[in-house]
């Protein structure tokens, strides 16, 4: 019933993401869209680091790349990553939003508009408020929303901002997020 998972994170989210990607079945039936804050001038290394333990391929997509199930798409450094109708990635160099490029709000908002109630949105640990508005859009358009338990987050600003703005469906720790994703059937 779901068509995509989108995950946003910033400071303190790298290990959580790594564990999630490691725990997904290699036949995971959905695409995983990753919008993580990162250094804008460091273009290489991040996707490689995430790939090491991931059980599904992690790709840093080119513009207009087709989104396919069972793959993770990492927003490239210094670009916004939009989800375009037709299930494609669209990149943008427009101004940073919330001091961030990629901005989690923009990835989440555009994904919500394309996938609507068939989207799962997850916000992880982070040190700014980017993502709160995006998660609200996911919820408003009928998607399922999860926030990492702030008690578990290295930095809780982002998750708390999201919880303040939206009554989310689940507040989960990392293990619970993993269990939830492992149960998703094609």
């Amino acid at each position, binding site marked *: 019933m779901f068509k995509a998972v989108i995950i946003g994170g910033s400071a303190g989210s790298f290990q959580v993401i790594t564990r999630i990607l490691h725990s997904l079945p290699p036949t995971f039936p959905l695409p995983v869209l990753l919008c993580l804050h990162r250094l804008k001038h460091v273009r290489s290394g991040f996707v490689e680091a995430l790939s090491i333990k991931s059980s599904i391929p992690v790709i840093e997509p*080119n513009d207009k790349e087709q989104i396919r199930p069972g793959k993770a798409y990492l927003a490239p450094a210094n670009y916004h990553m939009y989800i375009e109708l037709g299930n494609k990635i669209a*990149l943008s160099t427009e101004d940073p939003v919330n001091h961030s490029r990629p901005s989690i709000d923009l990835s989440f908002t555009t994904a919500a508009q394309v996938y609507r109630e068939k989207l799962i949105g997850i916000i992880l640990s982070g040190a700014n408020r980017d993502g709160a*508005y995006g998660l609200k859009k996911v919820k408003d358009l009928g998607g399922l929303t999860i926030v990492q338990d702030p008690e578990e987050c290295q930095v809780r600003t982002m998750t708390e901002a999201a919880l303040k703005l939206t009554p989310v469906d689940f507040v989960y720790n990392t293990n619970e997020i993993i269990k939830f994703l492992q149960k998703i059937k094609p």
Partner: protein
Amino acid sequence: MIRYEIGIVDTRTVIKTLLDDFGYDFRDYALTSFKRRLEQVILNNGLRDAEGLIMRLKNNPEFIDQFLYEVTPETTEMFRDPSFWRLIRDEVLPEVSRGASSKPRIWLAAFDSGEELYSLAIILKEMNILNNVQIYCNVLSEKTVNKIKSGRLDPKDIEVNEANYQRLNGTNKYSQYYTVDGNIYTFDSSLVENVTFLKQTPLIDNEPGAVKLILFRNQAIYYNQLLQEKMFSKLSEVSVAGGFLALGVKETLENTNANNKFTVFNDNEKLYKRKTV
């Protein structure tokens, strides 16, 4: 960031107005980013919604230049991707400027807000060949031309730009290329005094011929795949044999018809070289 969001139907209505009333064809621009640009224009100008924008365009035809100015995303950074500019300086420009009987032509074919142009001009100046080349620069609005000629760029985060220049290992100090008065940065406009500005429509119909280096970075991302195809094909026709084409680092000729017209010169920086035949 609670803000007005324009729907797809309204977006199409604006696009139709731009085509019917002004002859500007945005139909094959990428939908998500174009919607966002329209929202930005509506916000900047205190308009209520798409209808307000359409009324403004119809009632004040001179507003079109401001519209074109604001609908174009700003480049936001000087020397974006320093490793790209190093490659341009160390490998591309020496070849482009070598042994030419007439001034080799460089075409900034993307709709830049000035940062790419000044970055290029600074590098050419540091190589002492700024006056040995002819630069053509595409512009969509008159306001952009005036902004670029005045040197009043707004490349946002000064520390990012300074750091980019450091990574480029430029020969001078970045700060010698601008003066600062409060928050206003004025770049040395003599850098661009010999640039030819080409007023364009959104489809770029006015090309210089026989170009040896085309910079088209982060422009095709604002197109759908149909328009990307058309534009890449156009660029392949304008390029001389052995000429260079630079795309954004996340843009590619792969899976397009133009792919067999070029070889990959540097894959990381998405720099291509036009084949001889």
